[in-house]
């Protein structure tokens, strides 16, 4: 009996010890895993379960002054295949084919053993969702924002382009890049055993997107200007053509066209088309510059409106050079008539009365040879000899707009100063920067006065002279039915790059005018560079373009007709 009990105790003890040993081993293993392998296992699990993703925000939109979209970003998908994961290629092929995507097995083989074979780029989200819903193995999706320009070619030089990294490279896209780019938010997400994803924070895409940029450009005015200019650009097979429409009361740019331009959808072969000639290219303005000469002399009291000039029978010799007038006028001619007939000789005489220093000062006061400060990249300063280097011919030639290089923007801004009663304003194209989600303005750009260039009286006199130039002078073809127009033609000779002298073949025809003449609502500058054909004169090349553009814009802006000579009145019911 005792022996049996002893045996029983021994067995029981052994069993308990064995169980304890097993538990001890398990406990040891647990301690080893939980304490000693803790970091390593945690790290591996984190790698499998947690993922850090950078939420790329949508780039802000560019809108015109009336809220029409000029540039926007839309989500597109690139679809790729992983040939090593695909189970049934024919199934994948059929599924993609039903969504309009065709692939060949041979194409996949060309990629060798790579796990990433792109098959289609920039697919709409609806197509991507269709394919995703089939849950095919080996088909992957990459989302990205693609920049789109719904108006096509319109404003291409102004809006610019973005690079493949989404950063602006030219135009508004470049200058407003920091505003347009949204914030990048990093978030963590967890993936469970079945592959479902849980994000640790909710990110509202509309809250992290970039700011919207609202331009002063009016899409309709831009279209009118572009259509009008393009016709002439093609008709005269010109090298370049520029048109700017500006509001003289605010300095805001309503339209800006530079031709040739480019289409965002097409591949850019020549980088020159990216150039915004309206602000980057300089040209010799010719007779349009005469307003600077006359306004300066009037302001300084060197000439009066009643003064008369002898025009030397159309030829004036200065420092072995002969300056000619295109329109020969006999006898003594009034200041207004001088501008009507665009006399170079009279300008030389007026500028001489003014003197080098005063003339140089006024050229600078009108904003030439300095940046206007417009919110666009690549603005040129222009060309003007330092006053110390002026010779006997410098003052006479500059007086009628040769021997000086200006940008189209500088020229129109000078005309706008006259239209704005002698006050020069800073031109601007970016009107507002708004939040993308609630359109609340973050920054508003108000008109900025630079300086008073001439008095209100002088500006008024110049407007009257310019009105006469259109009514009775070289600018007759710029007349607009029902409206008074003030403006000036300009036909400038260009330097022949071969002979380095003024060419008799290459000209720049321009017209700058304002409507209505005495209380201008807008100023338009039209430049046709190197027009080919029978006539190169501004009066037959540039002025008609101005007239057609101004007519349409005046109608569009519903400017009341002010030309009393036109007796036709609209019937209103």
């Amino acid at each position, binding site marked *: 009996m005792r022996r049996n009990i002893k045996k029983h105790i021994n067995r029981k003890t052994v069993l308990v010890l064995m169980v304890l040993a097993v538990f001890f081993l398990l406990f040891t293993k647990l301690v080893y895993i939980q304490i000693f392998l803790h970091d390593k296992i945690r790290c591996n699990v984190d790698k499998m379960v947690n993922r850090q993703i950078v939420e790329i925000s949508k780039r802000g939109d560019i809108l015109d002054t009336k809220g*029409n979209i000029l540039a926007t970003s839309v989500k597109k998908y690139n679809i790729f295949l992983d040939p090593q994961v695909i189970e049934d290629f024919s199934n994948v092929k059929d599924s993609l084919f039903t969504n309009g995507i065709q692939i060949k097995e041979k194409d996949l083989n060309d990629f060798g053993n790579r796990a990433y074979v792109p098959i289609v780029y920039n697919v709409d989200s609806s197509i991507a969702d269709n394919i995703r819903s089939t849950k095919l193995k080996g088909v992957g999706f990459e989302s990205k924002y693609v920049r789109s320009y719904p108006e096509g070619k319109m404003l291409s030089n102004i809006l610019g382009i973005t690079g493949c990294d989404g950063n602006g490279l030219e135009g508004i896209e470049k200058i407003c890049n920091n505003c347009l780019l949204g914030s990048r938010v990093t978030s963590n997400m967890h993936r469970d055993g079945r592959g479902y994803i849980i994000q640790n924070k909710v990110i509202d895409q509309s809250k992290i997107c970039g700011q919207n940029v609202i331009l002063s450009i009016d899409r309709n005015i831009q279209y009118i200007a572009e259509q009008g200019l393009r016709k002439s650009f093609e008709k005269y097979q010109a090298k370049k053509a520029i048109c700017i429409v500006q509001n003289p009361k605010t300095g805001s740019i309503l339209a800006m066209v530079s031709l040739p331009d480019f289409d965002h959808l097409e591949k850019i072969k020549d980088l020159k088309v990216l150039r915004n000639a309206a602000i980057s290219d300089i040209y010799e303005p010719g007779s349009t510059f005469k307003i600077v000469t006359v306004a300066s002399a009037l302001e300084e009291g060197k000439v009066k409106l009643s003064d008369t000039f002898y025009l030397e029978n159309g030829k004036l010799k200065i420092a072995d050079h002969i300056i000619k007038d295109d329109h020969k006028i006999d006898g003594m001619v009034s200041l207004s008539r001088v501008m009507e007939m665009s006399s170079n000789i009279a300008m030389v005489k007026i500028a001489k009365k003014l003197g080098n220093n005063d003339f140089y000062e006024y050229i600078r006061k009108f904003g030439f040879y300095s940046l206007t400060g417009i919110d666009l990249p690549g603005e040129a300063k222009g060309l003007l000899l330092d006053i110390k280097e002026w010779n006997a011919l410098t003052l006479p030639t500059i007086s009628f707009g040769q021997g000086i290089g200006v940008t189209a923007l500088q020229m129109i801004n000078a005309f706008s100063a006259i239209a704005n009663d002698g006050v020069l304003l800073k031109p601007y194209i970016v009107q507002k920067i708004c939040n993308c989600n609630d359109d609340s303005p973050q920054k508003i750009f108000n008109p900025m006065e630079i300086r008073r260039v001439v008095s209100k009286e002088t500006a008024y006199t110049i407007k009257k002279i310019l009105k006469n130039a259109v009514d009775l002078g070289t600018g007759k073809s710029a007349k607009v039915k029902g409206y008074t127009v003030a403006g000036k033609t300009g036909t400038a000779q260009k330097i022949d790059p071969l002979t380095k002298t003024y060419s008799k073949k290459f000209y720049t025809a321009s017209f700058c005018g304002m409507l209505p003449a005495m209380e201008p609502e807008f100023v338009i500058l039209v430049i046709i560079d190197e027009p080919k054909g029978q006539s190169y004169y501004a009066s037959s090349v540039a002025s008609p373009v101005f007239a057609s553009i101004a007519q349409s814009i005046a109608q569009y802006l519903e400017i009341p007709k002010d030309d009393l000579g036109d007796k036709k009145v609209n019937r209103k019911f």
Partner: protein
Amino acid sequence: MHKSFFFILLLIISVFVYLWQQNTSLRFAYKISALQTEYNNIIAENDNLRLKINSMLALEKMYKIAKDKNFITADEQNIVYIE
């Protein structure tokens, strides 16, 4: 006896509440993630549609359509202004 019964019941309820809230929060997390994806897709779709509308209303396109349909610019005298 009663005390220990209530104690066990309280313990069970506490454990149940803890497990329930864990489970519910997880279910909500899944739901929020799914809704978030859906919301982002709707925003993307909305952007796409907005672009399509703007592309259709592009002035160049409208001009081409008008030209194809032989529309002409109305003569100024034929325009009737309604106030």
